């Protein structure tokens, strides 16, 4: 859209919806609304992280020790998720595989990294098996499977956890809201549920969960 066209549209909108253009919607008040909203969201995430720590303090430490034990025995980490969570899965895999500084590089693979594999499986069989099928190819007893989902309902994660359990992997689920269907599975050894009504705050706290697992697992490996 060109600037002129945009201006015309705005003029047309103004004649249709004059209430949108009352003085309460001038720039200063919108900026103030946005400023306040930013402050509120920053407070919200800090309080959510405190809730996660309070609920899952011992579970996080236990899970990190299980991960350290797996890596020490030659295990690998496979991480997966959809959408924004696929980027978390890739970030988590890369954090383990190529950490900055003096931390141990550990074998880890993001199952959304290879778009040829993902689209081949999705096209030939169905999107619900894009992770399960890769776990069937890669997963060995003692490897680690980590699935991230804000809703906890992603069908391809549910299939993946079942396959990972079948393979004897250590299974870790990171979900949001009330945990969704992931909370009903018996195939997840370590489940972390971030309780928030906001998908954004859930993702932000989920990032902290896997960062904490990485840091705790690194520490556990160092002291082994």
């Amino acid at each position: 859209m060109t600037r002129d066209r945009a201006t015309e549209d705005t003029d047309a909108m103004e004649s249709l919806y004059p209430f949108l253009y009352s003085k309460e919607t001038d720039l200063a008040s919108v900026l103030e609304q946005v400023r306040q909203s930013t402050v509120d969201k920053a407070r919200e995430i800090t309080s959510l992280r405190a809730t996660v720590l309070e609920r899952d303090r011992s579970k996080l430490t236990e899970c990190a020790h299980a991960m350290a034990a797996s890596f020490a025995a030659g295990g690998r980490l496979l991480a997966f998720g959809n959408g924004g969570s696929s980027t978390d899965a890739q970030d988590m895999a890369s954090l383990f595989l190529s950490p900055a500084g003096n931390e141990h590089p550990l074998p880890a693979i993001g199952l959304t990294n290879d778009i040829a594999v993902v689209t081949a499986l999705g096209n030939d069989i169905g999107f619900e098996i894009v992770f399960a099928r890769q776990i069937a190819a890669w997963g060995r007893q003692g490897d680690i499977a980590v699935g991230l989902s804000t809703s906890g309902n992603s069908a391809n994660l549910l299939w993946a956890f079942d396959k990972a359990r079948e393979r004897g992997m250590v299974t870790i689920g990171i979900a949001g809201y009330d945990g969704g269907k992931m909370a009903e599975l018996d195939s997840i050894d370590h489940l972390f549920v971030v309780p928030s009504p906001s998908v954004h705050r859930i993702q932000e706290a989920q990032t902290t969960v896997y960062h904490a697992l990485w840091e705790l697992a690194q520490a556990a490996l160092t002291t082994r």
Partner: protein
Amino acid sequence: MSRPEHGTELIDTVFGRRAEPVQDLGDQADTVARTCHAMAARFHQGGKLLVFGNGGASTDAQHVAVEFVHPVIVGKRALPALSLTSDIATVTGVANRAGLPEVFAHQIRHLSHPTDIALGISSDGSCENVLRGLRCAAERGLLTVALTGGDGGQIARDASVEHVLVARSDDPRVVKEVHVTAYHILWELVHVFFEHPGVLQREMKS
């Protein structure tokens, strides 16, 4: 990595390290508001968003792109956004021919329009290819926005960057988490300005 103090479990130290940099982002709310306004004005003019970063930030670039293209909140407009880290053929091709510092600038040179927005993400503010991308974008008239960390780094001080949010931590994991919150907020609050198109006629510099 810092070790737990006597009597404190490591996990408390890990979680505790997040609080202050997040509070500091809240203290940058004015900059957030002005950045959202400038970005909304560019989208309103038909501009698109180009996002780029290295390592963990490359996954943030993809996350930002999906956030704008496929809104999680029903009823919000889909907006054009592209991660410059997703085309691995181009990234590795340019890196191999011209070097890693050129990978983002090259794509900006050939994919951007002056009404677009360039968003560079660098956890220590010193990534050479992110800086080059932002400089190339500024020369072409794009709106330039950066998310950095630490003390802001060279990118935060560079004249080519119009809007900067700094995650004040030396821990790259904490920086990333503050960045995720920052771009979630940028996405959500850009849409607030669309509800008031009368205020999108001009941009303000922060």
